[in-house]
Each structure stands twice: as C-alpha cells, then as structure tokens.
C-alpha cells in the first residue's frame, strides 16, 4: 500500500519516460550513478580512516623525533655532569681546589645549557659553586639544606629537579648527581643548573608544520618548553588537557608508548595531539595539530573523490545518452514509420542499416508495410468497385421520382440491378396479405417456361415464409445443397445460385426480391450486406412510389372536391334562377293584368312577392359571382394596376359624379394578376368607399408601397368607418353591418375581394377607428416572371 503510494508519488514527481530511448538512457546512467555511489560509500570511510591513521602516524613520528632530540640533550647533559662529578669527586677528595674549579670551568664549556655548577657536602652546605653569569668564585656559599634537589639528590644517583620558571627569567632545572659512596656514606653531590632555553630552540626547529606546535610539560603538567616562548613565560599548566592528564598521571608512564587525543587549546582551536613520556626528567613531550589542518587534506581527498565521481557519472550519462540514442534511433524510425503508415503513407520504408535484431525488425516491418500496401491497394480497388456499383445503382434508382407507371419502372430497375449485381435473372413479387397470393411487379431475365412455374402463392414451410417472418435474406451459393430452399425449380433452368431478399416497405416485409445466377457460388453471405442494401433501396423506392401515388391522389381528390364544390355552387345558383324567374315573372304578370281588379292587400302581397324574389335573384347572382372567382378565373399575367384603376374609375363615373367623390391615386405597379378580377377588386373597394359615406362628399385615396416580396395596396376613405370588432366578419359571404334601409347590398363585395386577393396569393384586411374613415389594405406578390420585355 505504502509502496504503491510511493510509486504513485514518484510518478507524479518524475514522469516515467515513455520512450525506449529514455528508458535506456536512465537505465545506463542510473547504473553508473549507483556504481559510483556504492564505490564511494565503501571506499570513502576507508580512505578517511587511512588519512586519519596516517596523520596519527605522522604525529607519532614527529613527537618521537622531538622526544629523541630532547632525550639526546638530556643524555648529553647527564653524561657531561656525570663525567664532571667523577672529576669533582676526585679533586675534592684530594682537596685540590684548583682542580675542582678546573672541572667546573670544563663543564660550563661543555654545553651552553649549563648555567651554574656546584658541589654540596652531605649536610647540604655548598662547597663549590661556579656560575656562568657570576664569573668569580669568591662569593657566599649557600646553605641548600632545605632545597628539594639536595634532599632528592642525596637519595637518587641522578635527579632532575622541578623546573623553575619565573616571569623574568628563562626556565631552569637543577640536575644533581651523587658522588660515589664510600663506606655507605655519600660524600657529596654535584649539581648543575640547566637553562632550558635550549629546549625552546629545539621546539622551534622541530615545528611539524605551520599550524602544528610541539611543547613539553613537566611531571605536574606545567609547560616548560614550547615553540611559543610567551606561553612558557605565562607559566601555564596543561594538566587539564586530557592527553597530558592521561600521560602524567598514568601509573607507569613508561608503559604507555604514546597518548593521543583531542582538545581545544588556549587559542580556542580544536586540535589533535600526541604525546610521549620522556623517561629521565619525567617530562611529557607533545605535539598538537589543528583538526582543521589535519582534516583539510582529508576533505581535499573527499572532494577530489566526489569530483571524480561526479565527472564519472556525467561521462557515463553522456555515454548512456549516445548509446540509448544509437540503440533507440532505429526503433524511433520504426515507430515513425508506423505512424506514417497509419497516416496512409503506405509507400514509406524504414531503413534497415544494421544486421542485428533491430535491423531484422525493420526488414520485417518493411515487408509488413508492403503486404499492407498490397492488401490496401486491393481494398481500394474493391471499394472503388463497390462505389461504382452503388453509383450505378443510385443512377438506376434516381429517376424513380417521376410519375411513370410502376411496372415499366421496375423492369428498368431490375435491368439495372442485374447489370450491377451480375445476376442473370431478377424479379420482384409482392404478397397479398390475406390470400398469400403473389403479384409479380416486374421480372427480367427469366426463361418463359420458368416464368410459368414461378410461385404464385406463398406456401407454408417455404423459404419465402421464413423471409416474411424474420425479414432476413436467404442467400444460397448452391441451391442444390441448400436445404433451406425446398423448391428447387430454378435448377431446371440452369440457375445454380440465388438470393431472396425481403422487400421492406414501411418496416414491413411486403414482398421478395429474387436474384438468381447461373454461376455456382455466385451469391454468398459475404455479399449479404451489399444485397441487403439493395433490398432496402428497393423498399425505399417502392415506399416513395406509394407515397408519391397517394400524394398525387390526395391532391387530385382535393382539387376535384374543390371543383365539385364550386361547380355545385355555380349550378345551384344557376338552377335556382329558373324557378325565381317564374315567381317574379308570373307575379309581375299577375299585377300587370289584375292590378286594381283584386283588393288593395292583394296588390301589396304581390309587391312583397316580387320584392323578395328580386332580392333572392340578386343574392343568387352575387353567389354566382363569388363562386366564379375560383372557377372562372383567367390565367394571371403582368397587369398594370394603374390602367386597371383607370378603367374601374371610368366604370364608376356615374356613382362618382352623383356622390361628388374625389378619387386620388399614387403611381401603381405592374403585378401578376387577372385583369378582370383586379378590376372587380378595385371596383368593390372604391364602390364601397363611395357607398358607405356620411354627409361629406367621399375622398378616396389609392396608394401602394413595396414591402419586401409584396406590394401593399391601400384604399383609404373618409366614410363611416368600421368598428374594429367587425374587421374580420365583413370579409365573409353575406355578412352585413347595416340594414337595407341604410345601405343596400347583399354583403358579397368584400367576400369577393378576399377571394380575389387570396387567389392572387395575397392578404386583405381593414384598419379603421370605427368612427370616421377606413383603410382597406391588400397585398399582391411583387415577383414577376423573368421574361424580358414582359414586365417593362
């Protein structure tokens, strides 16, 4: 779980390389990096230890050499004093004062470190003293009874006393040696004061390096010699330093060859120190080196190693880069090749340069793409062939939108179908669902004798029944061997392969398309999709035909019913005239012959009969006019509305004069229209405008405006107006707003106007405030036929 999370995190952090090349690169580079790190991890600590021990060794050697030098000095001093002591003993025994002085002078000449030399008697009294600083011997001989060097000098044959350091003088140490005892009694001791300044010079000479220092401490840890004199003069004690402490307080300092340790020196520098015991005077010799200096070389080594490693890693990554590129390049080329092939560049070839596996792969790849190209070319040919077939089929089926008779059309289709599918014979049969009887819509290519035996009904258990049941085709390459086909009469006429396809019309199997071939195995299931497509197309053709037929029939029915209706209206009104005329005629004849011979009521009654009959006459005439707009209209032709208006006004001249009307008109356009009917339109509208006037003389204005695809005509008057709530009603047949006493008329005029305008493809409406004036608008299509010279 955790690991997966980690991997997930890593993937987010470092996207895993996808290409082989980068994987290879990271593999090789990473490998070298890991190697280098491993080597470093193993080698570096060892190297550090090595350097460390080397430095230790160096310190030991150095301290040893210092020790040797000091030891050599100590031995020299001891040897000189030892020789002088024997001489002193002899001379003193003989009482030769001059001899003693001579020995003393000899000793002082032996080593510059000797500052003073003297002899003490067993009581501690000084018997002789010679000082380098005080040239004479005539001085007060001192009593040394209380001094430590007298006490210790009596006990030990050789004794190095405590080093004396004062702030003003150089450090000194007193060395004593006993005279050889005679008879268990010590005759005296010789002493010498040794200036340790010599040690200082030694220290300075023995500097290990610039930063390292050597120093000497006495048995108490006090500093007695150092390369830095000032330290000594400050009378420092180094007893607290661990290494010093370890050395001087060990039980047997001689058993400890070296001590080694670390401390922070008086300058605050961390140092590494090594010390040795100096046997004679019981001193410790030390050398200290700053750790910084010490480790500097180590760090140099480490940095060098790390630098080397980094360089090595970089070099390995560079190599990895080159190798991965070299290895991956052919693979990349293969991939690019595959991409180009995928894009359809089938001619692309991958260079196979090498003889290795990748080269093999490239060669295989090229062979594959060649094979692909070959199969693709084949495919293209197949697609092209299929496309040709389809376009032929399409060409064959396209002309079916017309209205030719069905059987001829389907014979033509089947001929095309045969040429497209390569079949030898084809038929389409449609089933009657009730009787199961087949009707052959068309057949092509069948032997006449075969035609006679083609199935006339759908038998149960036949292959056809299966097709009607599930809508799936039956395609047989070998009729003889196909047990789905129970009726094998086709074989008698040399047809060996067949396809029965469902003719699906409006999602229902309505018939069978039968294709047959003389070639064995001609129709196979491989062609099923193609054949079914043809079947579907045929179904669509039949469906379209049916739709076309039914829509034609519908339009014809509608037209006929319209015509019948208009004919009815016409004939009805026409035939109604006859009895009406009888009524009016004979009533009039009656009133003419018998007026005054009957009583007055009889005359009035006859008057009503005549009036009613006359009005009915008018109504029938109006109805006739109305129905004639549809039935007796002329063909539309370009008509100049201005001329039509002029003629109309001419016809209305009497009415205009009587009413005192003023008719004004703006320029009017040429439109496609029936001149007579347009005249009727203007006449009705202007006639109405004159008729429905109030006390004022009528003022009528005719105008026209272009509105997009139509002309909008307006006939405005100053008459009695129309209540807007009647704006629709007035255009209906026999709708009147006024009594006959107010305004005469049957209410047909505006209905006729509406019918005329609608017949011309326009609209008519009225706008009026209902009090004063009304404007009738109507539109007529502005489009004129594009025949030059007609509209102009």
């Amino acid at each position, binding site marked *: 779980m955790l690991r997966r999370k980690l991997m997930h995190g890593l993937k987010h952090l470092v996207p895993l390389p996808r290409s082989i090349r980068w994987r290879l690169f990271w593999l090789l580079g990473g490998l070298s990096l890991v190697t280098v790190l491993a080597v470093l991890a193993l080698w570096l600590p060892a190297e550090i230890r090595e350097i460390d021990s080397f430095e230790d060794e160096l310190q030991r050697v150095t301290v040893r050499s210092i020790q040797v030098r000091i030891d050599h000095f100590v031995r020299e001093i001891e040897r000189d004093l030892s020789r002088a002591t024997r001489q002193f003993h002899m001379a003193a025994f003989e009482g030769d004062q001059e001899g003693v002085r001579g020995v003393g002078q000899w000793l002082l000449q032996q080593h510059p470190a000797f500052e003073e030399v003297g002899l003490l008697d067993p009581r501690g009294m000084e018997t002789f003293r010679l000082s380098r600083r005080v040239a004479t011997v005539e001085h007060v001989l001192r009593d040394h009874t209380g001094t430590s060097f007298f006490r210790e000098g009596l006990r030990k044959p050789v004794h190095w006393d405590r080093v004396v350091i004062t702030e003003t003088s150089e450090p000194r140490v007193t060395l004593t040696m006993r005279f050889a005892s005679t008879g268990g009694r010590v005759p005296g001791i010789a002493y010498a004061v040794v200036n340790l300044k010599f040690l200082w010079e030694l220290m300075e000479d023995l500097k290990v390096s610039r930063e390292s220092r050597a120093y000497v401490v006495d048995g108490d840890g006090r500093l007695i010699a150092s390369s830095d004199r000032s330290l000594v003069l400050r009378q420092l004690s180094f007893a607290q330093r661990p290494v010093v402490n370890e050395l001087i307080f060990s039980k047997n300092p001689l058993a400890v060859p070296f001590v080694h340790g670390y401390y922070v020196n008086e300058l605050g520098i961390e140092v590494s120190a090594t010390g040795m015991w100096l046997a004679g005077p019981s001193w410790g010799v030390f050398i200290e080196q700053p750790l910084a200096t010490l480790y500097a070389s180590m760090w140099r080594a480490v940095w060098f190693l790390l630098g080397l490693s980094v360089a090595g890693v970089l070099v390995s990554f560079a190599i990895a880069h080159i190798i991965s590129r070299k290895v991956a390049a052919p693979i990349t080329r293969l991939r690019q090749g595959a991409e180009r092939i995928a894009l359809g560049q089938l001619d692309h070839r991958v260079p196979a340069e090498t003889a290795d596996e990748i080269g093999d792969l490239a060669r295989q790849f090229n062979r594959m793409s060649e094979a692909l190209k070959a199969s693709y070319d084949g495919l293209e040919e197949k697609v092209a062939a299929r496309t040709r077939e389809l376009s032929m089929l399409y060409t064959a089926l396209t002309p079916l939108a017309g209205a030719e008779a069905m059987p001829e059309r389907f014979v033509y289709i089947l001929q095309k179908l045969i040429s497209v599918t390569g079949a030898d014979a084809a038929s389409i049969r449609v089933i009657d669902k009730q009787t199961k009887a087949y009707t052959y819509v068309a057949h092509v290519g069948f032997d006449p004798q075969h035609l006679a035996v083609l199935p006339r009904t759908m038998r149960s258990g036949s292959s056809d029944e299966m097709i009607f049941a599930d809508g799936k085709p039956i395609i047989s390459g070998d009729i003889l061997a196909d047990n789905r086909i129970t009726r094998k009469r086709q074989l008698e006429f040399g047809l060996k392969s067949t396809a029965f396809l469902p003719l699906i019309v409006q999602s229902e199997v309505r018939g069978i398309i039968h294709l047959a071939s003389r070639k064995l195995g001609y129709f196979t299931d491989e062609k099923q999709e193609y054949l079914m497509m043809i079947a579907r197309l045929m179904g669509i053709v039949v469906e379209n035909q049916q739709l076309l037929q039914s829509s034609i029939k519908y339009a014809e029915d509608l037209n006929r019913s319209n015509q019948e209706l208009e004919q009815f209206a016409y004939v009805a009104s026409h035939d109604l005239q*006859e009895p009406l005329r009888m009524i*009016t*005629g*004979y009533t*009039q004849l009656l009133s003419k012959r018998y007026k005054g011979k009957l009583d007055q009521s009889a005359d009035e009654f006859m008057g009503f009969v005549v009036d009613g009959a006359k009005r009915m006459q008018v109504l029938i005439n109006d109805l006739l006019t109305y129905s004639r707009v549809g039935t*007796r209209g002329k063909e539309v032709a370009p008509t100049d509305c201005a001329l039509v208006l002029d003629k109309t006004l001419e016809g209305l001249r009497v009415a205009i004069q009587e009413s005192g009307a003023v008719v004004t008109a703006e320029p009017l356009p040429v439109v496609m229209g029936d001149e007579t009917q347009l005249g009727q339109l203007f006449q009705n509208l202007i006639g109405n405008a004159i008729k429905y006037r109030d006390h004022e003389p009528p003022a009528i204005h005719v105008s026209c405006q272009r509105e997009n695809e139509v002309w909008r005509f307006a006939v405005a008057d100053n008459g009695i107006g129309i209540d807007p709530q009647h704006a629709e009603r007035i255009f209906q047949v026999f709708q009147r707003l006024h009594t006959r006493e107010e305004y005469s008329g049957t209410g047909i005029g505006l209905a006729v106007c509406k019918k005329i305008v609608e017949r011309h493809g326009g609209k008519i409406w009225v706008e009026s405030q209902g009090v004063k004036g009304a404007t009738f608008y109507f539109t007529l299509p502005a489009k004129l036929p594009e025949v030059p010279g007609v509209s102009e």
Partner: protein
Amino acid sequence: MIVEDNPGDIRLMKEAFSESGEDYEIIEAPDGAAAIEYLFQRAKYKGVDGPDLIFLDLNLPKRSGREVLEEIKKDSKLKFIPVVIFSSSSAPQDVSRAYELHANCYVTKPTDLDELFYALRCIEAFWLKAVKLPGRDL
C-alpha cells in the same frame, strides 16, 4: 320555335308575343331530342315546316341546347335559321361557347317581366322583321 323545358317560360314568352299583336305559329319542344326530331323531320314530324326563328335554351333534358345548336349549324339547310340562345345563364364561357357554335345571338333571360317583354319585342323586330335571310319570303 321555342326549345324550352320550363313550361312557365314558354307561357311567359307566348304572353309576350301575344301582346305584340302578331299571330305567330309557335312550335314548342320540351327537350333537345324532340327539337332535333322536329327540325330534321324525323318520325311523326315528317313533312313539317321549318321554323323562321329558334329560341334555344341551353340546359335541356335528353340532349342539351349546345348539341341541338351544333346539329342545326352543321346542317346545310337548317344553318340559315337564326338561333337565339335564350338562357338564364350569364356566364361568359356559356356565351362564348354558344357563339363558337355559330349561335346567331345570345340573350340572357331577364328576370324582370317588363325587361323580358322588351327583349322579346326587340328580337321579334330584328330577326322576324328587319333581317333578310336566304329562303325566306316575306
């Protein structure tokens, strides 16, 4: 001769002619077939005299006025008899069709009695009195 299926119309026409004062012999044919039998002197009409003027209605039983008109105008002798189409229709196509078939004139039957009488008087004055026709001796 009046070819008319409506007896009311025939009676009114007769009334009109009686008012004119002239004593015309008026032959009545109630349908187209009868008119043709009479004019072509078939069956019982053998040897009858041809009319001087024919009033022909268009809407007739058996054979229409148009057929009768066509037969008359196809015949070499009969075609000279003036035929007045006397119809209640004022439809333009009826009028033009009648003239195409060589009707001598087309008169819409007036609804008003006075107008009817006036129209008939005019026809009488013109076709029976003013016009000169072949084979007619006045």
